[in-house]
């Protein structure tokens, strides 16, 4: 990709929002899995490592800013970085639930719904940021607002 174009897509708000949206999408699948298994005996509720991703994102943003380069992630314990910068996450067992059933399961439909709503809101914020950026870009291409 030519230099000026990669400047727009590989750094700045578009790149950050893209990663956040990708994480939210991957997490939504895990949360849906929890909901589907709400009555599965022995099932342990899983989640993506949210805090770990946020920390990695903060570090990547900080590094991109100081180096004035593209947004680049470093792999963490539950997050792998592909050659093209694609992030893959490994689901972890969620520990925070206080309710235990006889099979030591910690499922709660309310909690899954709550997490899903939060996740959806995060995704919406990321999508809105991307939409806004796209609008700015289009305006720049057309040369008028």
């Amino acid at each position, binding site marked *: 990709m030519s230099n000026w174009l990669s400047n727009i897509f590989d750094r700045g708000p578009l790149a950050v929002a893209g990663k956040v949206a990708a994480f939210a999408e991957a997490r939504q699948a895990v949360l849906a899995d929890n909901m589907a298994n709400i009555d599965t005996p022995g099932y342990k509720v899983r989640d993506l490592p949210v805090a770990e991703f946020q920390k990695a994102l903060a570090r990547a943003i900080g590094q991109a800013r100081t180096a004035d380069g593209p947004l680049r992630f470093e792999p963490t314990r539950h997050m792998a970085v592909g050659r093209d910068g694609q992030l893959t996450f490994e689901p972890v067992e969620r520990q*925070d639930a*206080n309710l235990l059933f006889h099979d030591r399961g910690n499922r*709660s439909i*309310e909690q899954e719904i*709550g997490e899903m*709503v*939060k996740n959806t809101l995060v995704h*919406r914020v990321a999508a*809105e940021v991307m939409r806004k950026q796209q609008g700015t870009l289009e305006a720049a291409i057309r040369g008028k607002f």
Partner: protein
Amino acid sequence: MFGTFDISVSGMRAQRVRMTAIAQNLANINTTHNDAGEPEAYRRLVTIMAQGADKAGSPGVRVAGVVEDPGPLRRVNDPDHPDAGPDGYVSYPNVDMVTENVDAIEAARAFEANVAAFEMTKSLISNALRILA
């Protein structure tokens, strides 16, 4: 901001656990035998709630325990009943249907209140998002 969701979720969970205990009480309103089949009247379950969703000090609520109500059992004079004692009285569970029904309505309303608070938080954040969009 997102922590507000967790508070409402902990409220919903606690009320659902309470509802489960109430349903168990109503189902066992005439139970005179225990798990092992020995004559022992069922005792009403009471849900104890504590502050803090995960541990003390965190916001929200948690179920600290579901314990048996030690209150007096309902004694009915029925000498021919197989579970009657030497005095001819049968001990029935200390479950009162009216109390349980009132509790059930209250639990359902409390659950609804938490759902309402949850939705309000959601619309609050959605409204904030409108500034961006």
